[in-house]
């Protein structure tokens, strides 16, 4: 337990010490929120879908959690690079504990980032439909964070260096975001896109966030919870497996 805790603490400390990075990582979600939220707002309204800022805010929060958590996993590559990974891999500790400490640490950081973005959304004019919705929203943020921190661990354990990073970014992370329904409603989509959105785990996370925060949900909050929870268990298992196989 002490091992899991100290590795968790390391992730959190590293995050809190990189203030410029925290600010920088607020930039992208903010851009989506303001440019898309206000820019597409009138069109969305005319299409009879209501307030776009209300709609997109949960998506932007989900996006912040997705990016932060997946990058925390890929941080494994930096640790491999700068040598610290060796230090943990030769320690007389089951690799599962190391993996869990790192992943939960990365997920915690992603949650903090999600809460920051949610706060920014509130300042920009987002109004959730009640305080009671907050705990459920936090639960969904936590689930999204765990799912993608674990996925990041799988990627970070599999890639040997930064060369594959662009590939992962363009063919995995960006599609996960764009196909999640963060930016558009999931109803009445062309069949191909509908299939893709149903396969994307983030769809359920953002749908759940929307259900919690503004009371609109496509799949239903219970389905979202069940799907996301199962995916989390699967990805954690995959992450643990990939991490246990690392050779230096």
């Amino acid at each position, binding site marked *: 337990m002490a091992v899991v805790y*100290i590795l968790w603490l390391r992730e959190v400390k590293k995050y809190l010490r990189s203030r410029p990075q925290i600010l920088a990582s607020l930039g992208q979600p903010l851009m989506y929120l303001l440019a898309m939220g206000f820019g597409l707002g009138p069109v969305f309204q005319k299409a009879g879908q209501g307030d776009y800022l209300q709609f997109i805010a949960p998506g932007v929060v989900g996006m912040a959690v997705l990016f932060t958590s997946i990058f925390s996993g890929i941080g494994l590559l930096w*640790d491999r690079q*700068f*040598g610290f990974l060796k230090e943990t891999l030769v*320690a*007389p500790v089951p690799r599962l504990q190391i993996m869990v400490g790192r992943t939960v640490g990365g997920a915690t950081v992603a949650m903090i980032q999600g809460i920051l973005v949610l706060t920014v959304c509130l300042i920009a004019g987002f109004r959730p439909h009640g305080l009671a919705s907050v705990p459920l929203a936090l639960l969904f943020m936590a689930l999204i964070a765990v799912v993608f921190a674990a996925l990041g661990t799988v990627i970070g354990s599999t890639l040997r260096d930064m060369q594959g990073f662009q590939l992962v970014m363009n063919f995995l992370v960006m599609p996960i975001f764009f196909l999640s329904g963060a930016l558009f409603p999931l109803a009445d989509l062309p069949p191909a896109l509908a299939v893709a959105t149903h396969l994307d785990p983030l769809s359920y996370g953002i749908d759940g966030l929307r259900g919690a925060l503004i009371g609109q949900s496509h799949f239903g909050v219970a389905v979202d919870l069940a799907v996301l929870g199962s995916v989390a268990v699967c990805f954690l298992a995959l992450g643990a497996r990939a991490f246990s196989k690392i050779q230096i």
Partner: protein
Amino acid sequence: MIRVENLVKTFGDVIAVEGVSFDVRAGEIFAFLGPNGAGKTTTIKMLTTLLRPTSGSITLDGLDPAAKPLDVRRRFGIVFQDPSLDGDLTAYENMELHGVLYHVPRRVRTERIQTLLSLFELWDRRGSRVKEFSGGMKRRLEIARGLLHTPKILFLDEPTLGLDPQSRNQLWTHVRHLNETEGVTVFLTTHYMDEAERVAHRIAVIDHGRIVAQGSPQDLKQQTGTESLEQAFLALTGSSIRDERVDGADQMRQMARMWRR
């Protein structure tokens, strides 16, 4: 304590270690010497569970690192050749993390960290982040960290690279002390032949992935008819300069530097 038989490691079509065999007895200081790229670090990685051998057998305190990695890890400590500190953490935090990873009880941990950081003159800078340290300070911290727990076997992979004579002296004095009082078996590599001559009970020389000579410093000098270990080493391995293979890690280090600009 360590028994290696016909150890082979290949990366693609490159043979890094080619049928190496040697024995390290319990309680001895064993030096593993060789030019750059001879296969020293690859061998250490296999001994310390970081790499799986292609073929051949290793037993470490009676255990096979590939079969029982966790039990083997409980038995050794290591100072790596390359950096392995976390630059975003302070010197103290790096030590603390290591202590927790190696299950050093809190009270012992606090005490040892202070002793070791003082010994290597880092106590005053314990609260500074490691990325602000000079190369020599990082190296000293790395060594202090490796000595935090008392393992059965201590691996030192070129520990004195980039250290000043004072720190080198501290290190070897401390290592000898550990060896004599606690019976720690030491497995070391170095490019400084005077150090090997000074501390090692026995030496193995590896070149092109094969052991070319084994014995006490005295034996090696006799075998080659030379007067110093340095001359013996050159007689055994020739005087041409070797290149190490550039791997993906080096390329990434360069990219990391570009990113930071």
